């Protein structure tokens, strides 16, 4: 049966009906705080239970415990603070107990009750979350640009942030209904920020061998330059699943959430989020949520030992490569042959080929996926 929501209850902070109409009127009189697309996504995710048990942005107590203990103040596992940064000017005159309206572009997103206003040490945050303060790390660079204060408190969602891939947006309550309708008792969640190559396909199918269904859930939203654009990822997966996966074995849905590149800590956050969607298992491959050489290739596996109470089972699957002697895709655990027979699928090599409009070979990427990607003038985030 599908996993229980993290913390035991699926959070629902979505306001509807007459109460929504009333609060929309109220919100017009409140101080407005404008947020980025990433934070707008966090607002929607909190409200729809993606970040259960969070009911709003973190207050200091939770922020502190998450940073230093990787748990909320009530001891529930949580590894990356979900915070709302503001400038002094934005909240001047406001105090704990006041309400604000959170706005994204021209959309009134939510009302938030300010329960806490506090300073944060951004370098300390980076040291703990990213294990580095090197500004060449994209997560560090982004954090250092954030504002000086944090405000914490519960939110009431009035409007969702618009979703370009609405057709593929499912909330946890919806995936839970879907998995039940499909009679899936075990579901493996797969996180990605890339187009699928043969190595990804191998890892997903290895997991699918042991569970009822696969939940392919790419992250869409803020990513670093040279990562693939969201639309490219979505179209590439459409092509792969249509042509190479058994019918009804996969649920494909996008998750709007910024990529943090926090390696191990983010692997746990990603697992928790998929647990909230109902997954019973979570695929953890090589260098999960990593970037450059900031983390070891399997560093994101070790951190799961610290959370025996996580509530979702990690499936550690080693990197796949093509072995000419084995005659197929394998991994180092099951292939006894020497390096000379092994052909690795390199993301860097793939990127170079795609940039120069060269078709990657079939052992690296399915031709239908290649065709989709090469149809884009520029498939990479600039």
């Amino acid at each position: 049966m599908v996993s229980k929501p993290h913390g035991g209850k699926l959070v629902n902070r979505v306001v509807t009906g007459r109460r929504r109409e009333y609060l929309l009127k109220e919100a017009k009189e409140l101080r407005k705080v404008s947020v980025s697309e990433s934070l707008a996504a966090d607002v929607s995710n909190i409200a729809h239970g993606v970040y259960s048990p969070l009911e709003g942005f973190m207050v200091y107590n939770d922020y502190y415990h998450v940073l230093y203990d990787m748990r909320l103040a009530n001891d529930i596992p949580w590894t990356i603070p979900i915070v709302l940064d503001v400038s002094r000017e934005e909240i001047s005159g406001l105090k704990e107990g006041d309400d604000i309206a959170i706005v994204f572009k021209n959309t009134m997103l939510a009302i938030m009750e300010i329960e806490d206003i506090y300073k944060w040490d951004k370098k300390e945050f980076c040291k703990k979350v990213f294990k580095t303060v090197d500004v060449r790390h994209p997560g560090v660079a982004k954090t250092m640009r954030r504002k000086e204060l944090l405000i914490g408190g519960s939110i009431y969602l009035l409007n969702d942030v618009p979703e370009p891939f609405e057709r593929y947006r499912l909330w946890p309550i919806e995936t839970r209904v879907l998995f039940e309708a499909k009679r899936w008792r075990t579901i493996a969640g797969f996180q990605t920020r890339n187009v699928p190559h043969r190595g990804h396909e191998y890892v997903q199918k290895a997991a699918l061998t042991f569970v009822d269904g696969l939940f392919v859930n790419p992250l869409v939203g803020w990513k670093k330059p040279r990562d693939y654009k969201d639309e490219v990822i979505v179209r590439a997966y459409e092509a792969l699943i249509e042509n190479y996966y058994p019918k009804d074995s996969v649920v494909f849905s996008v998750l709007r959430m910024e990529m943090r590149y926090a390696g191990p800590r983010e692997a746990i956050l990603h697992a928790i989020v998929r647990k909230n969607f109902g997954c019973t298992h979570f695929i953890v491959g090589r260098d999960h949520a990593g970037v450059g050489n900031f983390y070891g290739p399997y560093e994101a596996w070790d951190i799961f030992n610290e959370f025996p109470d996580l509530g979702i089972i990690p499936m550690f699957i080693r990197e796949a490569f093509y072995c000419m002697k084995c005659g197929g895709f394998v991994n180092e655990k099951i292939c006894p042959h020497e390096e000379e027979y092994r052909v690795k699928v390199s993301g860097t090599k793939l990127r170079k080929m795609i940039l120069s409009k060269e078709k990657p070979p079939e052992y690296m990427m399915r031709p239908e996926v290649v065709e989709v990607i090469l149809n884009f003038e520029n498939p990479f985030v600039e």
Partner: protein
Amino acid sequence: MGFKIMGEEKVTVHISKELYEKAKKYVEESEGEFKSVDEFVEFVLKEVLSEEVEEKVFTKEEEEKIKERLRALGYI
């Protein structure tokens, strides 16, 4: 056949002797955590059933509305 202990209705359930002996050994070694095999068995069953009987996060009405959307999107 039901009977009452301390006001709560109880029923008799049959288990294999082998299982009973294992449970009895567990209770004896539990250092007072369980006073009897009855108490231990009831505890274990409660734990298992609380995992199986999940509190639904959606009402029947919500479920139908969601299924409508899922059908429209081609998921069902």
